[in-house]
């Protein structure tokens, strides 16, 4: 039915209570460094270390982590293969003949493919770190510190709340439909999904009106309070995060300094 919602893990792991600014810095910092890295060293380092951090330290089950990481594999594999076959540079290795076309496999393509795959693994790991250890509500304070407009943040917070309500409704409707063979064949599935979609839309609209009624009943004047700030971070933790990012940065940028190989 629906993908696993990571929020459940995010609010019940061992890192839940830690300062979210630290988690964002670590996660997004690593992500940034992975994404500007010229060699696969930094991404691979991040991929392995993040996996260990998430599984061993934060306590997320390995099975869950791996399934999330490998989720987009069809897309991934296809794309990597495409890259291998069409990009070039470096020395030619072999040629593959497909009818009138000849595809050349070159070292350059392999390098690009490896870099890309590493970057994806590293990037996904960093993303998963944030997604699995940080409850979404922490995000709003981050948005505010990024100086995004208050209407946007208010809207995001409301969307957050409405999403959970609507998801619950969608699941309920889908269950009811399934019990009545709603998804037994292609044609029925199309019909059921459409009924579901229109039902959600209409209920959503009503919910929007209810929402306004609820807000007005409490004298809505365009204001929303931000969530409470969490625990302050300790010096040890800051140093650890800093050290980690320095290592990543070094691995990411070293090739620039010493010339790429």
């Amino acid at each position, binding site marked *: 039915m629906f993908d696993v919602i990571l929020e459940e893990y995010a609010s019940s792991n061992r890192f839940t209570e830690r300062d979210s600014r630290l988690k964002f810095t670590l996660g997004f910092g690593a992500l940034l460094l992975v994404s500007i890295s010229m060699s696969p060293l930094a991404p691979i380092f991040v991929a392995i270390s993040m996996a260990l951090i998430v599984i061993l330290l934060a306590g997320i089950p390995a099975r869950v982590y791996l399934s999330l990481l490998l989720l987009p594999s069809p897309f991934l594999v296809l794309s990597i293969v495409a890259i291998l076959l069409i990009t070039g540079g470096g020395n030619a290795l072999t040629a593959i003949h497909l009818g009138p076309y000849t595809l050349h496999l070159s070292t350059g393509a392999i390098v690009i493919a490896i870099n890309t795959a590493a970057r994806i693994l590293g990037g996904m790991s960093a993303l998963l770190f944030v997604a699995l250890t940080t409850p979404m509500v922490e995000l709003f304070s981050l948005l505010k510190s990024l100086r995004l407009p208050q209407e946007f943040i208010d809207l995001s917070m409301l969307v957050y709340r409405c999403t959970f309500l609507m998801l619950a409704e969608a699941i309920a409707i889908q269950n009811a439909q399934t019990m009545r063979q709603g998804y037994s064949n292609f044609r029925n599935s199309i019909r059921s999904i*459409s009924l579901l979609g229109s039902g959600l839309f209409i209920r959503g609209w009503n919910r929007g009106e209810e929402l306004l009624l609820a807000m007005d009943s409490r004298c809505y004047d365009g204001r929303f309070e931000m969530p409470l700030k969490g625990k302050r971070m300790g010096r040890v933790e800051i140093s650890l995060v800093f050290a980690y990012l320095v290592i990543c940065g070094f691995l990411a940028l070293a090739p620039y300094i010493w010339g790429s190989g």
Partner: protein
Amino acid sequence: MHIMEGFLPSPWWELWFVVSLPLIILGLHRLKEISDMRRDAIPLLAVAGAFIFVLSSLKLPSVTGSCSHPTGTGLAAILFGPVVTPVLCLIVLLYQALFLAHGGITTLGANLFSMGIAGPMVGYSVYRLGCRVGANTYMTVFLAAALADVGTYLVTSAQLALAFPAAEGGVIASLAVFGGIFALTQVPLAVIEGIVVALIFKYIISLRADILVKLDVLTKGRADALREAAE
């Protein structure tokens, strides 16, 4: 179609943020305008955002057997307009990345451009054009949603092609390859989503056509005509 985290190399992933930025700023500006004008704007937009998210979490039945998700952005553009839809998509993409590990944060700019800006613009234009020439409403909606998806997929392919040009033939050849590969899944998906969106539209009209009138999606005359035809 989401480009997953880390797929795009520098400087491409940064570039798409820059490209999307002006339109987002426009959207945010409009958001402020609307919320100042109408008290019920923010709650309704919130529900709209939730709707897009939930819709895109559904699994569509597909001929190829793999699971695919609708983008929901075509329908969003028809219902909520092309200026505000990018803002809603930004929130949805953010939540998809952080809730579902779908897409990514560095690729947010690229995905936003393809799914939140380009696709909706295509969908919206097709819909308005169809309305203006008086074409059959459901056909128009079908085309709008399907072409929005096609537009998204083409832009995504272009984004990949630009980042990974072919050794022989450059970007064009690369576009052909990526476009060709993803056509297998994306074109059927676009058709199916088109059908589903048209059906959703039909059901909404038969139950609560007034909502579509309030949203300026249909004129009252058209809504009444369609509703009568449905009975």
